[in-house]
């Protein structure tokens, strides 16, 4: 187990280093720079450049950046004067995290229930309905889902607030829009894995022991079927996270995704760099946790039978 964990951690760290390097150099390749759009004289622009350290050799900049990152410093924003990337992340990340967690909880719980119902009623009408929901869900991009929900529940029927993020009723629409796509992929995987487990011998044994249907499903089938769902948790977290980019701008939520998109459009290097690296660290950590949990849940993974 220890060997497996160490291996995963090293791979994750390498991924992270690779990501930081790629992001750093790609950001330097970007067309335009943050000082051209402002009305600046050449001297001032040069001053600004030296202030931010852009006149130093690239490799030195890279080393400095790595050093700063190591101390947990993501750098400055060039558009929002005197604000550090850390400050902006600190201001905005709680909103995104709140929204993301709500969406994840919604997606996983409903996805599992839907998958279980479908598998239990295989081939019947209920299964058909669940599969239909799943396939329709995968066909609707989240920004369209967000717009549709906003239009009907917020504008046409006036049931829920249209925008902002001030209380529980404000969270319902964005979290649903964000969760819907993920929900369907969870339910598909769960259904497939339930159907696979039901053919196993231990289910037959349980049945021949005379256990009730409910007990078989609850104690034997679901417990075994749930491990494959864990493998898609990494991509799921990533999907929810990228979903926040668009959902936050549709619902005017002051979260990190909205800032990220804004800084892309503003050519704010330091912000893009800082936020991207932050997102990267976050996702790599999530993947690492999922991998380790998967190793705990399924001993076959640990010994490398993959």
């Amino acid at each position: 187990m220890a060997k497996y964990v160490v291996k995963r951690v090293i791979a994750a760290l390498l991924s992270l280093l690779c990501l930081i390097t790629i992001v750093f150099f790609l950001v330097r390749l970007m067309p335009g720079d943050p000082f051209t759009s402002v009305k600046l004289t050449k001297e001032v622009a040069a001053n600004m450049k030296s202030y931010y350290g852009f006149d130093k050799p690239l490799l030195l900049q890279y080393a400095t950046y790595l050093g700063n990152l190591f101390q947990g410093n993501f750098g400055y924003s060039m558009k929002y004067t005197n604000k550090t990337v850390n400050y902006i992340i600190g201001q905005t990340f709680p909103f995104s995290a709140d929204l993301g967690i709500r969406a994840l909880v919604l997606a996983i719980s409903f996805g599992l229930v839907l998958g279980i119902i479908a598998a239990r009623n295989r081939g019947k009408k209920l299964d058909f309905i669940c599969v239909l929901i799943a396939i329709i869900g995968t066909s609707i991009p989240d920004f369209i889902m967000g717009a549709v929900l906003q239009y009907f529940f917020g504008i046409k029927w006036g049931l829920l607030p249209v925008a902002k993020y001030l209380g529980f009723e404000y969270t319902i629409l964005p979290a649903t829009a964000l969760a819907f796509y993920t929900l369907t992929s969870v339910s598909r995987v769960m259904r497939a894995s339930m159907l696979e487990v039901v053919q196993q011998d231990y289910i037959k044994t349980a049945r021949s022991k005379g256990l009730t249907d409910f007990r078989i499903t609850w104690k034997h089938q679901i417990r075994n079927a749930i491990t494959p769902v864990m493998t898609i948790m990494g991509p799921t977290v990533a999907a929810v996270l990228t979903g926040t980019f668009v959902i936050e701008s549709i619902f005017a939520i002051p979260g990190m995704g909205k800032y990220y998109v804004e800084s892309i459009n503003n050519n704010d290097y330091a912000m893009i760099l800082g936020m991207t690296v932050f997102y990267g660290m976050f996702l790599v950590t999530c993947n690492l946790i999922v991998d380790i949990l998967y190793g705990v849940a399924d001993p076959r993974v640990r010994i490398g039978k993959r």
Partner: protein
Amino acid sequence: MGEYNKEKFVIKGKSISGMESIHRPSLSFWQDAWRRLRKNKAAFIGLCIIVLYALLAIFAPMLSRYGFSSMDTSAMHATPSAAHWLGCDATGRDQWVRVWMGARVSLTIGLFSAVINMCVGSVLGGLCGYYGGRLDMIMMRVIDILYGIPSLIITILVMIVLGKGVTCLIVAMCIVGWIGSCRFVRGEVYRLKEQDFVMAAKVLGIPDFIIIVRHIIPNIIGLLVTNLCMAIPGAIFQEAFLSYIGLGIAPPNCSWGILAKEGIQYLRIHPHEIIWPAFFICTTMLALNLLGDGLRDAVDPKLRGTE
């Protein structure tokens, strides 16, 4: 009861040639898959929708009297009518033409990036899986590390560097997109390599190239086609997402993502501007997903209904 002897029995219908004759026409793998696909109503409807949309994307802009970027200030935000079938957008551009111009871009990007990803992934994955050894070791380490990097973030950054445009989009999506298919093909080839018929071919001294072409490829091509069909909606999704956050196609060109983005701004007052692009995006996704599911069942009936 009379006696039974040989004379009383007459051999009625035994003819060697009749027994050996084949009653049904023999079907190749693809004919069989096509037959199963046609029987699957949902998948067949999906196929029809896609063909219809592809034809409309090609011909609808040609046949319309409006240009996709020509503005008409008298028809700003016009609702659907006989003159403008799907209405007009904020600058009076005909939505019907714009939807199908957008379809051209979105479908092209979806198809091309999925095909390129699949080809690159298959070749690399196939080499790794078939030859194994040091190449495989190194590739797998590299892929493990690359796989840990969130692909969308890299795509976004590459888009910022390359600028807007169809080619840039395809390139950006392919830089990290091949990893998934590479892993998949490697696994499949690795599994097939151990099977007896490949072993038999090897023992017979057939060169590797022929084994790959005659034995390995025909065995995974069905799954590859299915995966390709499943990858296209993903690519269209990604394009729409990138265009939505302001990175995809440069105006006045349009794609479905841009139409959705422009439409959402007027959601409250002119809902028709978002409803129709959204409808076409969703039905295309639905059709491709249904077709993908149907293809998977058609090329591999064992998997039917498990997912």
